């Protein structure tokens, strides 16, 4: 009954219907959510279970090893230490898995039969087993069984103590700020020197040799920081079954880190291999025609183009690694999820406590994605 040339009635107007349907779906989703939240609230209230975040101020009632966290401190601090442990294993794991993954991915395409097939066995072996088993094996089979018991610990040159209670290494004693300053100065110096050498190379064509110039500067900066901090060192010593001094890599940390790195690197290797194969063959032929060495071909021609396509899927692997770190709970690594679960076991209300942990993981993952996106944007092909 629409008048010719006029608007159709509301209930047949596509523009109106489109908006109306979207509103209906939103309202339905919101309604279900509100119903669930309301149920949690009312049921909790009826059972006398707190729904707020007041539990964060209660004493945690459990200690966290290797952190100085005592059982009398509040839950808030326990969660903070759990977050730090998650960050520690995730960030180290991401760096190590990237390096190992790129190496294995390149090796997958090597002309050397042994190297190529060793890389293949590694990839096919590791990416096809459940990560949980790998972690338990790395803990029981490697960290606890392959290393000597503490009463027969190795003490190479009297500098370290190696046993199945951890590897204890010499470490600085105090004066952390000076050391940190040294690290910052070293990083800035390395960055500055790299820029300068690049400029020299651009202007004169002389080789960059960045490492040759930067390494002494970095060593000098670090040494200066250490000397200024008082040059104090603690060397671990074994007395009976107790090790004093030094810094310790615990078997639990070793097991979760090693398993995460080996597992994630096998996936990254496949991404890198695929990305390298996606670079047109003509690129490396052209590089060969310019008489670049095989390493130079890889370093200056192939990898820069390959990594560009590899970055987004590698970002996914980084997110996976971070989330998989929660499996450390199995081997008593006190990461965020384990700390939450022990807090709940000590009386923290489950729903708010786990919501908080979920929220922290979402924030962590979004930050990681942000970094990957920034890198991706920088590496992306600039088209005009």
């Amino acid at each position, binding site marked *: 009954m629409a008048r010719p040339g006029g608007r159709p009635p509301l209930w047949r107007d596509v523009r109106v219907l489109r908006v109306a349907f979207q509103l209906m779906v939103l309202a339905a989703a919101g309604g279900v959510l509100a*119903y669930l939240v*309301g*149920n949690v609230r*009312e*049921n*909790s209230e*009826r*059972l*006398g*279970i*707190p729904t707020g975040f007041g*539990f964060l101020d209660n004493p*945690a*009632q*459990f*200690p966290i*090893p*290797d952190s100085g966290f*005592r*059982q009398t401190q509040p839950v808030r601090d326990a969660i903070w230490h759990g977050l730090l442990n998650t960050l520690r294993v995730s960030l180290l794991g991401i760096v190590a898995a990237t390096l190992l993954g790129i190496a294995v991915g390149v090796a997958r395409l090597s002309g050397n039969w042994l190297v190529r097939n060793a890389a293949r066995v590694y990839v096919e072996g590791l990416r096809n087993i459940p990560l949980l088993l790998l972690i*338990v094996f790395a803990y*029981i089979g490697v960290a*606890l*069984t392959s290393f000597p*018991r*503490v*009463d027969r610990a190795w003490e190479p040159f009297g500098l370290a103590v190696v046993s*199945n*209670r951890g590897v204890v290494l010499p470490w600085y004693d105090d004066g952390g700020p000076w050391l940190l300053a040294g690290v910052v100065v070293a990083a800035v110096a390395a960055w500055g020197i790299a820029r300068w050498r690049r400029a020299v190379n651009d202007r004169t064509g002389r080789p960059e040799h960045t490492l040759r110039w930067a390494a002494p500067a970095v060593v000098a900066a670090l040494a200066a920081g250490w000397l200024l901090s008082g040059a104090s060192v603690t060397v671990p010593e074994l007395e009976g*079954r*107790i090790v004093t001094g030094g810094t310790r890599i615990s*078997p*639990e940390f070793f097991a979760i880190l090693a398993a995460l790195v080996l597992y994630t690197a096998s996936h990254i290797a496949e991404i890198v291999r695929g990305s390298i194969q996606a670079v047109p063959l003509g690129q490396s032929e052209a590089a060969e025609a310019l008489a670049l060495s095989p390493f130079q071909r890889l370093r200056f021609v192939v990898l820069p183009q390959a990594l560009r396509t590899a970055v987004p899927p590698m970002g996914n692997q980084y997110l996976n690694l971070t989330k998989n770190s929660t499996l450390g*709970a*199995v*081997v*008593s690594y*006190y990461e965020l999820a*384990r700390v939450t*679960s*022990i807090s*709940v*076991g*000590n*009386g*923290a*209300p*489950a729903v708010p406590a786990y919501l908080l942990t979920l929220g922290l993981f979402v924030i962590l993952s979004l930050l990681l994605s942000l970094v990957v996106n920034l890198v991706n944007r920088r590496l992306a092909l600039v088209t005009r």
Partner: protein
Amino acid sequence: MRPLRPVPAILLTAVLALTACTGDDDGDASDETSGATSTPAATNAPGQPGPGGSDVLGTVQRNGRVRCGTRDDLPGFASLDPSGAHVGFDTDFCRVIAAAVLGDAEAVDFVDLETANRFTALQSGEIDVLVRNTTWTAVRDGTEGATFLQPNFYDGQGMMVSTDSGIDQVADLAGQVVCVAGGTTTEGNVATEFERLGAQPPEILSFESVELVQQAFQEGRCDGWSSDRSQLTSLRAAYPEGPESLTILEGTFSKEPLAPAVRDGDSRWAQVVEWAVMATIQAEEFDISSENVDEVRSSSADPNVLRFLGQPVDGTVLDPGLGLPPDFAYHVVSQVGNYGEIYDRNITPLGLERGLNALWTDGGLLYAPPYR
């Protein structure tokens, strides 16, 4: 599911109305008058695990089953025998409750729970009662939505070490490593004990499973293994290298009253569970066991005993109005046994003395209020 929003409530009413039409003959009288939405209990469809619902006793009686939260990995308290049946001290108390409420000790659905999710299972209505080595503490009373009943076992945390380690008191472990199967109060108790002793706190490793603790202990990762003494005794008895290679140190450094727990807000069901457990204690005090209960029932002249077993005294049977049948204690004792029998069957083989778990008349803590 008590606080229903209008829309789902209407849906549920429709569903209930439909089921009521089809299955009328096995519904009992109270179901027909319910009117579906008017009473909270009516929304608790039989067999449906729903949170709350203030009438657990009614649900249990309708279903003919008690859903009991327990575990399967702690020999002596709750484990599986070679045929796959649940055996142990805690599981026997599940049977006690079923015998009291339903007259059939085997009418139990055992729900095996992890330590971390046991209270959630109770809160959400997945189980009717939790009998799983659970310590009664103030925080749990206050925040877990659970009501703890009279403890059925008085325990305390202890420390176990290798016999050849040369450690002979807890303080010797200062600065060393203690492993626990944790996620609960165990870690904190260890840390607090070393603080009390003024000793350097040990490194405390907390695993999710007992098996991993045992692995780590066998590989020499830990010097001490801490848990409730009853658990240590049980684990020591089953240790692969033989019980004599482990030593449980003197000294108990926490109070661990292990008590059955029910959901908050249903005092009727709480009283039922309470008195079912009390019946085992009272029976031992009366010297009534599964062996002599029939004889006592027919020949005893003690009015207290006769009343307890639901026998008429001068023509009247005592029904205290708990919602239990008057002869519930007879079913409990004849089908499961008294407290001493349950203890001897499950705990004595582990080598654990009665200690605090003796009757008050023998210097223990077990004391049942009078049944009258």
